[in-house]
């Protein structure tokens, strides 16, 4: 049986975790995301090659209860749909795991779309036969 493993969708996606909050930026779409608490730990475990089942089992051990598969699977589905995670059967699972908070809170991925306009502006308005554009003012500047 093949275990579903993942990796972060680099280089389009970059991420940094600070004090239990992960900032994830999709440089391709211009969207960025934050996820904290248990969700940030799950994100980092998935990026470290842990499968959904292994992550859910890790949470079950830590929080002493059943029912962790559904929120983990739901988050994985969302992360894949947002092109932040991609399946990678060759991913190697890291031995270490990030610390978990004391209490379980279902993971919530917050999506920010306010920067997308920076990537949507089409800078080329007229291209010469040689391929070099005449610059015609139209799109607003980067800031």
């Amino acid at each position, binding site marked *: 049986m093949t275990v579903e493993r993942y990796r972060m969708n*680099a*280089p389009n996606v*970059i*991420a*940094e975790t*600070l*004090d*239990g*909050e*992960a*900032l994830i*930026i999709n*440089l*391709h779409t*211009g969207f*960025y995301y*934050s996820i*904290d608490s248990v969700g940030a730990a799950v994100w980092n475990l998935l990026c470290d090659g842990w499968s959904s089942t292994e992550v859910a089992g890790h949470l079950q051990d830590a929080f002493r209860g059943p029912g962790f598969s559904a929120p983990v699977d739901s988050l994985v589905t969302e992360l894949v749909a947002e092109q932040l995670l991609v399946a990678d059967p060759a991913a190697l699972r890291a031995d270490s795991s990030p610390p978990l908070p004391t209490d379980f809170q279902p993971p919530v991925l917050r999506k*920010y779309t*306010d*920067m997308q306009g*920076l*990537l949507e*502006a089409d*800078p*080329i308005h007229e*291209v010469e036969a*040689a*391929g*070099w*554009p*005449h*610059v015609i*003012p139209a*799109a*607003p*500047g*980067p*800031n």
Partner: protein
Amino acid sequence: MAGAAVEGSASAPEFGDARAEFDAFMRGFEAACEAACVIEHSAQLAGQEILFRFAGKALEERLWPALAHLATESPGKPHLTVCSWDTASTGVEMPAEVGSVLTHLERAASTSEPRDGIFAAFVMPGLNLLDTNTSLAGFWVRDAGRLQYWEWAGPFRNVFHWWFAPRGMQLVHAAAVGLGDAGALIVGKSGSGKSTTAIGALLGGLSYTGDDRCLVTLEGVPRAHAVYATAKLHNENLDRFVSLRPLLMNPARDDDEKAVLLVSQHFPAQLVGSLAIRAIVVPEVTGGTTTTFTPITPGAALRGLAPSTLLNLPAAGAPPLKFMGELVRRVPAWSMKLGSDPAEVTAALAAFLGTVPEASA
């Protein structure tokens, strides 16, 4: 103006020959220098000596003013040389060997890695190149006379990013003002209040290193270095700073063009080379009357700083995010809910900076 042919520009090589592209670009630059004249300025930024070479007066007059505060009278051997030209004023077309603009656009969007040590990206409105082997950089636009305000108010951003990032210095999308040397790095997306806060601080007598871009160093105490001696304001915000109207660089401008002030000309004493970053501040326009500060997490500070910085750079990659992560780990951050009176905001910011201890080295 009809473009003059550059020798050897008849056939383009296959995509991927970065060295041939760069050499062809430099042949274009040299041809432009022969067609016009060479104007050189030596500058120093964060310890790096930079020689700016412009082919012709037209481009120099547009791009140099924002950088002129960096000029050095006794230049050393340049670490970096930036060669710039435009086609309209020199009559020299881009050599075909440089490749197509669409290729350079795609490359800018797809990778942050240099090829053969050469960075290249077409980013509105021109082509940017840096050869890390020779420390030569290039910048080209079609028409110096039609540059947009964000380019002449803040030129060479991509070249600076490529050059400084490997040297432990990061160009960030932020303003920085200070009480003496005690500075606040003001972060956030466009429209969040960065520029109005910075310009208010300028008028209120605080020190200033930029309203939109700063070069941050982390060695020792984190510092924000002044790169561009300009300040930009949306037209709708000019009513709050009516004293600036007669001082603007672009008194006649389109509705969507920001008003630009040359700080080095009108507020030279307040334009400082760098400031110690004691606080990261995320402004928020609230419509309230009183400015207040509330501590926020490092993650919230990074959310204010990193996306707008990285999405303004060509495929910036992971290292700049790591850099900004280290910055927010070392410097405490606050949300700054802005009052409606710029003078009150400045007074509150100055009082706040007087209470914040120096960041950890």
